[in-house]
């Protein structure tokens, strides 16, 4: 599904990702952990197509095609979804209009008829119930005035609506209460199939109790310094990143 080879990314001539290698196969759940500022969100943004960064070397293949030459909207249409660490408020653009426009653009790309109003509303209702997000949120402007947790929930709601093939969730669990955390996990697990993959970026082992990863990677200072199974997360929780640092020095 996704193959990243020696990806190097800079911003203002400062190198942030210093050669990332990562392979995610269909049906897998990967967790990426790592200290603040290590480059997790940068990686996620680059994959989604934010043009703020200079890609100085490396390659990313998504479903066998060069991902980096595609526009952000093309990537979305090809089934890639980024759950933002900091979802953007867009006053004046209603959630419904936004979701419906996006949904139909994606359908058009796939050669499907646009959803009718009632089909769209039905789908909204269904996913709203699943994610337990209230209509008072979906009737407002995109993220406008949403609380931190509500914004995160809204990301998962969108994921549920778009049903992506590859979802990258950037700290979707931060700021969520315990119930919301379960709901988010439910949203992710609900989507899980041999055809879909998920990358969850998180600081907390707690989320991984609900969304059990096949692989855990530690991103440290722009590099993946350690990869392992779900137990790696437990080890990290116990020993902290200092341990990874000394490990990686020994490597």
């Amino acid at each position, binding site marked *: 599904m996704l193959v990243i080879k020696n990806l190097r990314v800079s911003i203002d001539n400062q190198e942030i990702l210093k050669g990332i290698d990562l392979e995610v196969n269909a049906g897998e759940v990967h967790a990426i952990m790592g200290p603040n500022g290590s480059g997790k969100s940068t990686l996620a943004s680059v994959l989604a197509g934010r043009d703020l960064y200079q890609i100085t070397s490396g390659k990313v293949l998504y479903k066998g095609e060069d991902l980096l030459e595609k526009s952000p909207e093309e990537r979305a249409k090809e089934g890639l979804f980024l759950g933002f660490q900091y979802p953007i408020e867009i006053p004046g*653009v209603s959630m419904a209009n936004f979701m419906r426009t996006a949904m139909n653009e994606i359908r058009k790309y796939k050669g499907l008829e646009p959803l009718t109003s009632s089909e769209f509303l039905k789908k909204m209702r269904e996913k709203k119930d699943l994610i337990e997000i209230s209509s008072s949120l979906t009737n407002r*402007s995109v993220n406008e005035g949403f609380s931190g947790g509500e914004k995160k929930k809204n990301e998962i709601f969108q994921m549920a609506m778009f049903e992506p093939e590859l979802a990258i969730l950037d700290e979707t669990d931060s700021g969520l209460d315990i119930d919301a955390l379960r709901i988010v996990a439910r949203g992710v697990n609900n989507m899980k199939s041999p055809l879909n993959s998920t990358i969850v970026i998180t600081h907390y082992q707690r989320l991984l109790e609900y969304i059990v990863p096949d692989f855990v990677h530690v991103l440290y200072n722009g590099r993946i310094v350690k990869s392992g199974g779900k137990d790696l997360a437990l080890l990290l929780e116990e020993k902290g990143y200092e341990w990874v640092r000394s490990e990686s020095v020994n490597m």
Partner: protein
Amino acid sequence: MSTITNISLEEHFLDLYRKNSSDIADNSAPLMNSFRENAIARLEELKFPLNGNEAYKYADIGSVFKQDLVKTFASQKISFNIREIFHCDVPDLNTEPLLLVNGRFYNNGLKYKKLPGGIIAGSLLQAANDYPEIVEKHYGRYAGESEDGLVALNTAFAQDGIFIYAPPGARMEEPVQIVNIMISEKGLMAQHRNLFVAAEGAELNVVICDHTLSAHSFLTNSVNEVYAGKGSQVNLTKIQNEHNGSSQITHSYYHQEGDSNLVSNIISLHGGFIRNNVNVKLNGEHAENHSTGLYLSDQGQYIDNFVFIDHASPNCFSNQLYKGVLDDTARGAFTGRILVRRDAQKTNAYQSNNNMLLTNNAKIYSRPQLEIYADDVKCSHGSTVGQLDENALFYLRSRGINYREARLMMMFAFAHDVIQNIKVMSLRNRIDDLVNKRLRGELSRCNNCSLQCG
């Protein structure tokens, strides 16, 4: 005719007046004529607001008035059937519009439009003769004190326009629509004058649409005088959609008595040179004014809004909200002047001007001017100039919405809160649609009534 370049503008227009004064008078009403000599003297004294005039700092009035344009004062016989080339059917707004063609009331068999509640709408020239007691009481009363030479110019030359009167307590469901058309075989200048009167407790809704129906240069220098009586509710919407060879200067004077509420919306969709002066006098306690504007300019268009709110009584409220999107090499200016007089305690006055520049060559000059002489006052002003929010744009695109559409969604969102001020729902939806079309570049610049394409 002497070319204007060799003589001063004042000389040109004074000369024009002298040579045509009998034509002007013969094709107008005695009441309007009685203001002319005085206005000419005023013009000589005030002069044209050219270089160095503070209020017109960014507007090149000289170039606009120096254009070689035909000025006619006799009643024109229009030799075409206006119905054939122009048909305005606004869904939900199924009223017959009143037409002003080149500044003159276009009589299509109907002298006045009479609406329920005793509301009368028709030609000002006619009304000055038929309803002298109303016209006399208001004509020239609010624009008369103006320090603007261009207002004096209008008073000296204006022969006709639209008159609307809503008697005490009258209710109005649908707005009266005025369609202001410029059409000619040669470049033309017109100066009309509108007078709207809402008596005590009356409701008055008016929509004015400005159009150019031929590709020539046009200049309009018009004056609107609006009287909002005690407790009245007045909703005015102006939609400007003229081609890039047109210049338009509109001077609006809103005189508001106590407890009145006046909402003014100016939607500038297209126009080569636009200057909108909005002068509000809050003349009684608890009067409320909302002056809003939306401008969408591109190419070399110039848009200039000048708002002056005179808080002359205590306990009044005013709110200005002007927003604009400027593309290409468009230039714009906004001046919001708030005067709170010494006795106008407990005034609430707010102002905000937000601009979005889509290129590095687009420009906006934004000036708040606050003069506050009372001490118990709540006043705020804010002005922003920005670009499209790249993060928001990325957010939309990351969901599959293409760049162009995402950009449009954001511009539309930016414009939307001005449109929300439009009180008449059917009109609001229609304007939503127009603005959407305009942003998509689907609105033709000329030869069409903006309200019919759809």
